[in-house]
């Protein structure tokens, strides 16, 4: 009686006896284009790493790197990768300040939703092809302290990077990074599931020319 029990333990230790279940990618939210329902955009493997140009003023490069890194870490198989480039002419995504450049300051721990915002512009022609580099603009809102702006910017930058990877809609979940405006600093399980499913869905919108 002891020998089979030992053998089962040994085999279990080596090979594992329990059934291996793949995790569910639900719940998630729609990722198609808000005004072109059923049209999906994502970067294809041959376009990785996606090349980001960050405004050379202020801490934009750090904000973009932070946002790209957050989204890269949502994927298990390297489906999305981004890299900063120095030449805006060689970029797939251009991220700039819309007007004033905020000076560096220690962030306010309260978060300060609304102290900044951003907009991502994607020009798509009638053939569902993106015609030029995606453009992201970050803007500082008046009436907030520098600390509040410093707390807001990484969150909004990560949210806009989420749009540039192909999450074209806002989440209806107020606790998701891709809700508008974002209230959390990192992608949630819903954000991750949505991005993962998008990156294994056939895109219908063509990326901009390389």
């Amino acid at each position: 009686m002891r020998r089979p029990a030992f053998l089962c333990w040994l085999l279990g230790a080596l090979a594992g006896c329990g059934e291996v279940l793949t995790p569910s990618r639900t719940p998630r939210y729609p990722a198609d284009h808000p005004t072109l329902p059923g049209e999906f955009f994502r970067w294809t493997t041959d376009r990785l790493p996606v090349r980001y140009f960050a405004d050379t003023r202020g801490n934009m490069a750090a904000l973009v790197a932070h946002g790209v890194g957050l989204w890269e870490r949502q994927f298990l198989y390297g489906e999305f990768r981004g890299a900063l480039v120095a030449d805006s002419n060689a970029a797939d995504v251009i991220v700039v300040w819309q007007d004033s450049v905020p000076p560096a300051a220690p962030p306010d721990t309260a978060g300060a939703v609304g102290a900044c915002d951003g907009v991502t512009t994607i020009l798509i022609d009638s053939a569902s092809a993106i015609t030029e580099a995606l453009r992201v603009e970050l803007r500082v809102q008046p009436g907030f302290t520098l600390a509040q702006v410093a707390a807001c910017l990484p969150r909004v930058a990560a949210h806009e990077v989420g749009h540039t990877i192909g999450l074209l809609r806002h989440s209806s979940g107020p606790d998701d990074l891709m809700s508008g405006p974002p209230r959390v600093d990192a992608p949630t399980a819903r954000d991750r599931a949505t991005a993962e499913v998008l990156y294994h869905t056939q895109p219908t919108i063509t990326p901009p020319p390389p």
Partner: protein
Amino acid sequence: MSGTVRGGVMLAALLAAWPSGRLAAQVSVHIGAGARYGTALIRDSIVVPIELRPSIAPALLLSVRDELRGPWAADATLDITPSGLQRHEAGSSFDAGSVTAVAFSVGLRRTFANGLTGRLAIGGLAYTGSSEGAFRDGSGGLMPLGSVAASYARRGFTIDARYDVHRFITPALRAMRFNNPRPVHRVALTISRRILGTDGAP
């Protein structure tokens, strides 16, 4: 890295523990190289089935063997396999980085006849050299390993057919709610040569 260091420390301890007279008389050191195939590290399903699989890769071996009584011998083997990783999805393959598997095992060998030998071993395996994707939060530490092998020795060379199995899971996979480690089966064909000492091999 912890697996590499641990394996190296164990091998060094093993060498230090052997009396020098014994080393001269019955202990031999072998190096080997070959090719290894492994089954999928991860099987997943996101819209379509996905596998993360190591590519066929070189296998490098360092082994210390001590002849026991009769046809028996004990050995300790350090086995290193640097391999590329590929994501297989919907009939296509995509590069997914690389990783190195470092395994250390202790085993018992029995020589049968005409240079044929069987080996049964247990040990541990660790993955190192990657911090991306499934390995972004670490490699999962030392995983238990079981191994069997058949060898044929002739004129100082030994051809080994090796099979081993271990369980694979990483902190990133656990965070993504993979519930259990997955068994990973590996087979290797290697050729090795004695570089120090003598043994019972022809």
